[in-house]
């Protein structure tokens, strides 16, 4: 075992332990935080494969943006754990069967030819000036441009739909126009009155 193997097994152990913790932890905030940990360790594993752009993007998008919103929601919800666990044993056999089938299927796919260790050797080391980001950008905008643009349009449709669903026109809201506020001069608001001082009767 050399140093690289050690790093791989270390990250893999942390990843599997934290992923197990996500589903077994009682506190939903702990679950969300363990999911963050598993994303970060997964990014570490991708770095070992010299996929630095994907690894950093995983941290940037999932850890930096998606999980923050998850954590936000989980923290603000008042989750009743006892009520959530009510039907656990009732549904357990069904869930266990599903999980077993899933694991068996994944194992069958992974042990087949195209995914074997011989078919997927570790990638050759690249030169120091090789830029993963540049290569990825070149491929996305030439060979895979159709699929890429399609994904972008789907995301745009989802975004428009989300805004259209939550858009409400309220008539009772009080809003100020900062442009007008800035334009206000002293003369609009203030009137200085000059008057002689009065004597007490």
């Amino acid at each position, binding site marked *: 075992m050399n140093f690289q193997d050690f790093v791989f097994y270390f990250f893999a152990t942390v990843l599997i332990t934290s992923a197990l913790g996500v589903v077994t932890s009682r506190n939903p905030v702990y679950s969300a*935080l363990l999911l*963050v940990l598993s994303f970060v360790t997964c990014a570490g594993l991708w770095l070992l494969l010299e996929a630095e*752009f994907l690894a950093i993007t995983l941290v940037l998008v999932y850890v930096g943006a998606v999980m923050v919103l998850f*954590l936000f929601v989980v923290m603000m919800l008042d989750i009743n754990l006892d009520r959530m666990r009510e039907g656990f044993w009732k549904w357990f056999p069904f869930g266990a069967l599903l999980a077993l089938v899933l694991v068996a299927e994944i194992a069958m796919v992974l042990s087949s030819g195209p995914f074997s260790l011989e078919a997927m050797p570790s990638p050759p080391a690249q030169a120091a000036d090789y*830029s993963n*980001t540049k290569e990825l950008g070149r491929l996305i905008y030439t060979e895979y441009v159709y699929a890429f643009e399609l994904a972008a349009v789907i995301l745009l449709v989802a975004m428009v739909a989300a805004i259209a669903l939550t858009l409400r026109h309220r008539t009772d809201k009080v809003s100020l126009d*900062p442009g007008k506020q800035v334009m206000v001069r002293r003369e609009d608001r203030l009137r200085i009155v000059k008057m002689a001082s009065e004597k007490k009767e």
Partner: protein
Amino acid sequence: MEYIQQLFEQIFGTDWGSAFFLLAKNWVLILAIVVPLLLGVAYLTFAERKIIASMQIRVGPNRVTFFGIPWLRGWGQPIADAVKAIMKEIIIPNSANKKLFLLAPVLTIAPALAAWAVIPFSPEVVLADINAGLLYILAMTSMGVYGIILAGWASNSKYAFLGAMRSAAQVVSYELAMGFALVCVLMMSASLNLSDIVNGQQGGSFFSWYFIPLFPMFLVYLISGVAELNRAPFDVAEGESEIVAGFHVDYSGMAFTVFFLAEYSNMILVATLTSILFLGGWLPPLDIAPFTWIPGFIWLLLKIAFILFLFLWFRATFPRYRYDQIMRLGWKIFIPLTLVWILVLGAIMQLPDSIRSMFPLSLWF
């Protein structure tokens, strides 16, 4: 250096020895960055108190000296503050979630220090010269928000939670404008590597620095940076008149100081990034004799000091923003502005050479 490497390889074998040597070397280099950084943070607090004091016609800290030397009056203040913070008790509230309460400051300072790994201080002087340096910095700074949210939630107190919500919403919104402003920079330089970005600004004088062709983006980045730092005038997250001190209201002693250190080292980080991305990093303003005698590192320090002075100046000058107007500025002004500027920049870069040569654009594109 090679002798030490051979020593390591003799003790641990070739494979493990070189790995341990790399680890040990990086440890030393990390210390060489973090120790001056923390000293800089200590004296940044001193500079802040002195500068704001003179802007408000006060004296500022002037009691603690080193060994009674009269002209160093006040210079011992940051050291005294640090000693006081270390001696104080860390109080953990009864109803707080103890584990997360103590994890929060760690999660705040770790990304703030980790982001420094890819900063180039002068040509060739950089800890990790990675290709995707700018992306790495974005990823690290976006992780800082966890500490804030967790601190607010784990304290189990209304004020802390309100402060955390305000701060997190603000940080998440301004990150977008900041990211788009950085997209403009990397369109100009065609690289994500910070050293390449500085080298792309070379051109004989300060006219070729990116803050001239990208002036609106420079302003957007600087203002978003202040908003990301939760500093005045965007400090509603710790608005002391409304919610006491925001997310760290229940922290005391060293736990509070760690938040403080993270905030100030983030300040220096934003100032450094602004100087590297827009103000030419270690490049002198003019490539002629008296300017080129000064080493590049000093130029970088001067630029960082200038941006930091701006941050302190803002704090002494501007009143606090109202919360809805902070959100309006981020979402309705900065993001459209940056998107339009990306389009304009892309259009200019695609202009045919014949049109481009009619304008003096060759300096930048």
